[in-house]
C-alpha cells in the first residue's frame, strides 16, 4: 500500500554548518489494512517521515508510492488530488475554530467541490461513527480534547481515504481518552480496512493497536518488524529502552546483586525462559521438575499479551548439577521456547 524507497531528507544548515540529515536510508513497506507504528524519541525524525508519505515534506531523494501512485513523481495539481485519498490527524487536532463540528468535517469535501446534499449524506454517518452526532452544531472551543480528536478523525475520513496518517494523535490526551481514541482507530482499521500509519513516542500505543512497528533514531529506522517479534526480541538498545518498561524483561535489583557472570562455589545457574505465542502456555516448568527431577526456584516472572498473543518471561534458579541443567535447557528448546543463561546465583549467605 505504501512503499518508501531509499528516502533521504537533508536540510542545509543555517550559517553554513554541516547539513542536517533529518532522514537517512529509509526503506519501509506498509501492507494494505495494516496498522503500522513508528516510534522514536522527539527529534528522531518520525514526524518528518510521516509527512513524506503525503509529501507535506518532500524527500531530498528516494521515492514514495501510495496505493500504486508514485507520489514523488506527481505535479502539484496531481499531488493535491492524490492527497484526497490520504487522511491525516494531528496531535493538536488542527480544527478550524471558526467552523462548527459539522462544517469542520465537511471541509475536505468542500475543497473537493462535493455538492451540498452529498456532503450531508457523508458527514452525518461519520459523526455517528465517532459518536458526536449531538455536537454537530458546536464549535471546537466547546469540546473536550477527546471530542476534538474525534472530529479530527471524522474529518480525515470524510474524503473516504485509503490511508490514515496519525501524527501523535493521542499525545495531548489523558490516558483514558487515549485508550478510547485508540479503540476508535482500531475499530476503523477493522471495519473500513483502512491502512493506518501512526507515529508516537509512547510504546503503549504501539502495543495497543499496531501490527508492525519501526523504531527510529537520528533519522534512521534502526529496527522494524511485527510488533510481537520486536517486543519479544528487541535487538537495538533504543528498542529495548522502549520495550522494557512495558515488557519487564529484567530482574529486580535485589536479585541482580546475587548474580555473577562466572560460576562460583555452591552457585546455581539462573535461566531466563521466554514464552512466546501459542507455546506460552506449555507447562515446561513442571515437565522439567518431573522428568529431570530438577527443582526450579522461580525468581521473577511476567506474562503479558501483545496483539492478542501471550508473551512472558520467567527467571528461574536451577537447583541441580550441570548435567541436569543442560538437559533442562535442551527440554525448553525442544518446546520451542527461548532460554538463556543469565548468570550464576551465589548462595545468599556468601
Amino acid at each position: 500500500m505504501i512503499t518508501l524507497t531509499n528516502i533521504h531528507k537533508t536540510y542545509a544548515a543555517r550559517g553554513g554548518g554541516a547539513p542536517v540529515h533529518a532522514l537517512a536510508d529509509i526503506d519501509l513497506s506498509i501492507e494494505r489494512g495494516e496498522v503500522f507504528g513508528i516510534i522514536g524519541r522527539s527529534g528522531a525524525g518520525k514526524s518528518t517521515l510521516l509527512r513524506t508519505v503525503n509529501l507535506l515534506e518532500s524527500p531530498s531523494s528516494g521515492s514514495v508510492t501510495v496505493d500504486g501512485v508514485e507520489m514523488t513523481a506527481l505535479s502539484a495539481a496531481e499531488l493535491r488530488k492524490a492527497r484526497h485519498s490520504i487522511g491525516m490527524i494531528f496531535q493538536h487536532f488542527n480544527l478550524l475554530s471558526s467552523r462548527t463540528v459539522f462544517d469542520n468535517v465537511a471541509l475536505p469535501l468542500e475543497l473537493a467541490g462535493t455538492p451540498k446534499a452529498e456532503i450531508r449524506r457523508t458527514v452525518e454517518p461519520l459523526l455517528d461513527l465517532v459518536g458526536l452526532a449531538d455536537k454537530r452544531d458546536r464549535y471546537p472551543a466547546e469540546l473536550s480534547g477527546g471530542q476534538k480528536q474525534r472530529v479530527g478523525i471524522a474529518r480525515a475520513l470524510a474524503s473516504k481515504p485509503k490511508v490514515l496518517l496519525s501524527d501523535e494523535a493521542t499525545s495531548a490526551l489523558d490516558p483514558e481518552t487515549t485508550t478510547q481514541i485508540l479503540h476508535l482507530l482500531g475499530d476503523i482499521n477493522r471495519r473500513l480496512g483502512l491502512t493506518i500509519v501512526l507515529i508516537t513516542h509512547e510504546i503503549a500505543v504501539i502495543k495497543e493497536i499496531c501490527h508492525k512497528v519501526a523504531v527510529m533514531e537520528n533519522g534512521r529506522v534502526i529496527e522494524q518488524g511485527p510488533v510481537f517479534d520486536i517486543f519479544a526480541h528487541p535487538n537495538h538498545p533504543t528498542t529495548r529502552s522502549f520495550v522494557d518498561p512495558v515488557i519487564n524483561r529484567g530482574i529486580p535489583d535485589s536479585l541482580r546483586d546475587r548474580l555473577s557472570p562466572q560460576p562460583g562455589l555452591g552457585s546455581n545457574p539462573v535461566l531466563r525462559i521466554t514464552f512466546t505465542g501459542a507455546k506460552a502456555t506449555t507447562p515446561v516448568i513442571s515437565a522439567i521438575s518431573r522428568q529431570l527431577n530438577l527443582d526450579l526456584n522461580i525468581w521473577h516472572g511476567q506474562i503479558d499479551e501483545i496483539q492478542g498473543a501471550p508473551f512472558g518471561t520467567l527467571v528461574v534458579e536451577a537447583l541441580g548439577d550441570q548435567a541436569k541443567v543442560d538437559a533442562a535447557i535442551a527440554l525448553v528448546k525442544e518446546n520451542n521456547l527461548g532460554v538463556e543463561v543469565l548468570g550464576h546465583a551465589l548462595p545468599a549467605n556468601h
Partner: protein
Amino acid sequence: MLSPQIIDLLIKGLIDTLHMVAVSGAIGTLIGLPIGVMLAVTGRGELLQNFAFNKVMGAVVNMTRSTPFIILVVAIIPFTRLIAGTSIGTNAAIVPLTVAAAPFIARVVENAVREVDRGLVEAAQAMGATPFQIIRKVLLPEALPGIVAGLTLSAVSLVGYSAMVGAVGGGGLGDLGIRYGYQRFLPEVMLAVVIVLIVLVQIVQSTGDLIARRVNKRNLKS
C-alpha cells in the same frame, strides 16, 4: 450656549468626517486586505513564499507608513488632483486618507493572518487544498476576529487623520475645531468638537469590539 449656526456646522462637520472615514476606510480595506494577505502568505516559510514580492511590497507599505500624514497630504497633491479632479474639499481629502489607510490596514491584516495556527494550513494542505482555497477557507475565516479588531483600530486612526485634512479644505470636525475653536477663539466650539469626536470614537470602538466578539468562536463557554 452654542448658536444654531454652530450646531449646523457641527452636524455638517460630523457628516463630512463620517463620509471621509467611511469612504477611505472602505477603499483602504479593498486595497489593504489583499495586500495584507499577500504579505502574510509570501513571508519566509509561508504558503506562497516569495521574497521579492514580500520585500518590495513591504518597502512600499513602510514608505507610506513612515511619512507623517500631514506631509503625505501635501506631497501627493498632484496624485489627488489626478484622482479627484481637485485638490480641495472633502472628496479630495479622501484620496490621502485612503493612501494612508491602505498600508495601515495591510499591516493589521498581515498580523491577523500570521496569527493563524500553522497547523491549520498544514491540515488543509494535507486535504489537498489549493493555496487560494487555504486563503479563502482557512486563513481569512480564522483571522476574521483579528481582522475586525484591526479594521476598528484603522477606523479610529482615520478619525484622527481626518482632523488634519482641514489643511487642504477637507472639512469635517477637525477642521471645524481648528477654524472656529482655535482661530476664531471659540472655546465652546472646540469643546463640542472634542466631545463629538470622543463619542464617535467610542461608538466605533464598541461596535468593532462587539463584532469581533461575535465572530470569535475561540473562547466559547461550553
